[in-house]
């Protein structure tokens, strides 16, 4: 059977000594999609990514990449993957060109150097400046190029635009979209909500070593709390609205205007509202940033 998932994890559990970092991470990334991986610091993003590449090994659970187990077939898996680590380190006594040639040799010299030059040009990377003299952003560009240069089937990038200026960030977004258009799957972690909104087809949110949400950005907005402001033609008894499951009356004004907070679907509320003389309805959806901050806040509250 054709494998539909580029990445599939089941019940990943990872301890660092006595500290548990992952509590059973289940994740599915379909082939050809761009998935954003959001989470606060220490949530388990990097640990999950490093388990995928067999850099660290989970104590429990399974990882499958295009149907292969990275523990049993690490070389076959890595042939298909382009990886950009969150903390990129390079050999400082080399030039970018020599560094990339070394990486190309590790891939069996199957790299198209015209494509490498093209990538370098797009993100303004000088291949002949010694790495030790490069800024963090320029080093990050080397990381981006090495991840993309063999046109991988799967790109795994841990905060890909870290240290890059906004113009180059846009170029990287373009490159990732181009890769997807050419059939690649992209799995990237980020703190930048705008980046996830701009790029991702789907988002997974990890908190405290658990995936707490997995949806596309618009679904995610729907699934969370939103506010509704209703105006009525005449004064009505608003208590009836407050009794609906998932609905909370936040504010009312003379029985002619109400602000509600809603969680879940709107079906019962709409049916109830049909009994009232409604003149206007306004739904306020939270931004992805607000959703993410809400999860952050819950995380911090749990920590306290």
């Amino acid at each position, binding site marked *: 059977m054709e494998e539909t998932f580029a990445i599939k994890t089941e019940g990943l559990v990872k301890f660092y*000594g006595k500290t548990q970092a992952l509590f059973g991470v289940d994740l599915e990334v379909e082939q050809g999609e761009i998935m954003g991986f959001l989470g606060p610091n220490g949530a388990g993003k990097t640990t999950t990514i*490093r388990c995928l590449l067999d850099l660290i090994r989970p104590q429990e659970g399974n990882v499958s990449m295009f149907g292969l187990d990275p523990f049993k077939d690490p070389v076959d898996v*890595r042939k298909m*993957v382009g*990886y950009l680590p969150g903390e990129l*380190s390079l050999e400082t006594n080399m030039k970018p060109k020599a560094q990339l040639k070394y990486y190309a040799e590790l891939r069996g010299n199957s790299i198209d150097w015209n494509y490498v030059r093209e990538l370098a040009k797009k993100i303004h990377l000088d291949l002949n400046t010694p790495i030790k003299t490069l800024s963090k952003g320029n080093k990050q560009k080397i*990381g981006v190029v090495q991840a993309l240069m063999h046109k991988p089937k799967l790109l795994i990038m841990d905060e890909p635009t870290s240290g890059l200026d906004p113009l180059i960030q846009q170029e990287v977004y373009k490159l990732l979209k181009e890769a997807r258009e050419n059939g690649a799957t992209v799995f990237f972690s980020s703190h930048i909500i705008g980046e996830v909104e701009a790029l991702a087809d789907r988002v997974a949110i990890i908190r405290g070593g658990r995936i707490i949400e997995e949806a596309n950005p618009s679904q995610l907005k729907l699934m969370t709390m939103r506010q509704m402001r209703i105006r009525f033609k005449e004064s009505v008894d608003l208590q009836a609205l407050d009794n609906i499951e998932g609905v909370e009356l936040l504010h009312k004004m003379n029985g002619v205007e109400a602000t509600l907070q809603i969680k879940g679907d709107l079906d019962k509320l709409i049916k109830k509202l049909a009994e009232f003389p409604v003149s206007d309805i306004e739904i306020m959806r939270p931004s992805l940033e607000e959703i993410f901050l809400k999860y952050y806040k819950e995380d911090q509250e749990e920590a306290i």
Partner: protein
Amino acid sequence: MFTEFKHTLRKMKGSLLGWSIGLGLYGLLMAWFYPYMFDSGMDFAEIYGSFPPEMMAFFPSIENIASPVGYLDTYFLSYIPMIIGIFAAGACANMISKDEEAGILDLLLSYPVSRTKMFWGRFMGFIAGLVIVLLVSYLSWVIAPPFSDLGFTLMEFFNMFVPLFALLVLVGGFALLLSMLLPSKRMASSLTSALLIANFLLVGLSNINENLQPLYDVTPFAFFQGAGAIDGINWNWFAGLLGVGLGFTLLSWFLFQRRDIRVSGEGSFRLPDWLRLKRK
């Protein structure tokens, strides 16, 4: 594997150059110095005989210093193995752990190269580096004979380096193993070097305190032939030193296979995480 082999040699080129030049010049100097030393009319046996026995104990061949074998033993094979051993310890402790601590290994292991190939490619790079250093040292001694009077054949000089090679593989293998077990490469190379120096001191101390002899008898230097190899290599000792060295290396490979690669920086003392594995 060949890529890692080449890369290891490329990374070692500075230290290889330094060690080769240093040992090469030392070999040339000592080989050339030999005839002049004994033509000067000084009675070295008498001079050395006046030294305290505690010092003489570290150079057991000093009484025969006027003989070529005694000269080589005293000026080359007594303490030079310890010094080249520090090179071997440093090179092997750095082999994997340096890149891991620098955060480079994280990215390298995302490439389609197995840990086995990476490990053995790098180890073979170290062996090649070691051979280069020893070869330069060997050449420095064999170039000199026309002017000096040591009188050994090329093969006899070569024999002198064979046990040294085995000893250095053992030292390197041990440092590599420690780098897999201890939190940092710095600790692995320091501890290996300290043990190497301790072993050298034990060689001398066991000559003046017979209670230390049983301890000395189980150390690597007890199986190191020194200049005695010129007359014929003790292949059992050679195989023993090399075998233990390769045993340490195999154990290091086993540990590397199961190792959780750190993002960067030094580690800490704790039981390896792979011992907790339930899945595999």
